[in-house]
């Protein structure tokens, strides 16, 4: 194993890690806002990938341009899921936690089933795109352009999210609602609106990720499952509910995955992530950047 191979795979790991962060951050945002784990998060990703696929197939819109449209579509999906499902699940008189889990878990199964019905179980892909198949070489390291672009979008999205949360009124309302949802009405804020927008925002972020991934992953009804698992690990690593933690957690997961692939056979590539996850959970159960 040469130094070059190591650097090469760490660089790819970093790019993938940034994308993992982008996939996970919506999950972290929603959990931080209202202590609800969206078990349909992977299915949100799946829908975003199909949206991108169909925009390409029917309108010849490149995944690059489809990204904002997928984000918008997933914003709507997120807000609707909150207003139609989660809002009522939260009103349960007993076992609220369980009710929420089954509500979003059930939603995941329904979404997968509908995807099978309408889109069939076929593996789809976006056969050609502006960046697809192209690489850039930086100091002898080859980076695939779609992944590089994805990493840049992820960084931009995290930067934008940071500014949004810290510099805008709505960001402040989001923070206030996560502190005490029962108190925001005292200043005239409708907590249900904040929750719906929070779900919308979480959806939009995973929508961006899905559009990017559509250009280099197969698209099929169950595609969300494996990425959702990585997203849960990412969020747990970074600290549940911490947006910055999701960013850092994503990078760690990407790097660990790449390192594992260097030393273990490909079929065991998840072993490293899982080991790191267990380690963090045992040593620092609230995650690396969690504050609860």
């Amino acid at each position: 194993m040469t130094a070059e191979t190591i650097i090469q795979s760490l660089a790819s790991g970093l790019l993938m890690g940034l994308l993992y962060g982008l996939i996970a951050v919506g999950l972290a945002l929603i959990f931080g806002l209202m202590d609800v784990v969206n078990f349909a998060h992977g299915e949100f990703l799946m829908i975003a990938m199909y949206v991108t696929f169909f925009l390409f197939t029917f309108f010849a819109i490149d995944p690059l341009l489809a990204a904002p449209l997928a984000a918008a579509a997933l914003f709507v999906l997120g807000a609707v899921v909150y207003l139609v499902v989660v809002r009522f699940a939260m009103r349960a008189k007993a076992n609220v936690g369980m009710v929420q889990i089954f509500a979003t878990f059930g939603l995941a199964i329904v979404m997968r089933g509908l995807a099978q019905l309408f889109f069939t179980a076929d593996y789809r892909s976006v056969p050609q795109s502006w960046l697809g198949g192209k690489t850039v070489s930086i100091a002898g390291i080859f980076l695939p352009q779609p992944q590089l672009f994805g990493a840049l979008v992820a960084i931009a999205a995290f930067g934008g999210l940071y500014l949004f949360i810290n510099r805008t009124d709505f960001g402040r309302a989001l923070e206030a609602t996560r502190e005490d949802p029962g108190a925001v009405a005292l200043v005239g804020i409708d907590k249900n609106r904040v929750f719906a927008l929070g779900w919308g925002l979480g959806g939009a972020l995973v929508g961006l990720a899905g559009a990017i991934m559509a250009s280099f992953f197969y698209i099929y009804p169950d595609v969300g499952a494996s990425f959702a698992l990585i997203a849960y690990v990412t969020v747990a690593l970074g600290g549940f509910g911490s947006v910055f933690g999701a960013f850092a957690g994503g990078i760690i997961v990407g790097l660990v995955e790449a390192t594992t692939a260097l030393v273990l056979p490909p079929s065991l590539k998840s072993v490293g992530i899982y080991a790191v996850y267990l380690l963090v959970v045992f040593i620092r159960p609230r995650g690396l950047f969690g504050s609860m």
Partner: protein
Amino acid sequence: MLSVHEVTTAYQGLVAISAVSIEVAKGEIVCVAGANGAGKSTLLKSIAGAERPRSGTVTFDGKRLDGMAQHHITATGIAYVPENRRLFPRLSVRDNLRLGSYLYRSEANREEPLDLVFTLFPRLSERLEQRAETLSGGEQQMLAIGRALMTRPRLLMLDEPSQGIMPKLVDEIFQAVNRIRDAGMTVLIVEQRMAECLEIADRAYILQTGRVLMQGPAAEIRGNPDVRKAYLGL
């Protein structure tokens, strides 16, 4: 200005206030006093929309409030400082105040009440970057009132502002209530410390086990021999 008519509110069948009626006129300070569990907080919650009355009506400047969502009631011009203050503990003093003016879009409207807040409670202006949870009990109460003033209310409702606060600060807070009225607002205040409350109030109601026991001008109630014996310990 505010008219509460025969309001009954219950918690899972347990009636906390029953057929309570009170009136508050513009520019008044009205005190609602009573012992533990008399239903004082429930009365304010029923007006603010934090609890839904089982029957009766609440009218504010001709507008029916009962049944309205709590955040809409805030927007009609009623600011409510609950018993436990409900600050946003990990947000700064500045952000807590800023959130108070969330409903206003123009910067001028948002900044305007700050002058009054800082005049009333200068110590808040020295602690703008501090997290709300790190303030003393008295300062937290000041911040809660400050945040309420930032909504530019016409009616301010305070639930036991003196609770858990050292005597010196209690004076400061009652002083502030007087000046808030002078600034053109109406104040409805709920207290167990009846003596202090009656001193600044124009009129008062005494609640006992969920019903209005007595009502009238504050001076009259203060002079009532039964009140002196039962509530003022004189």
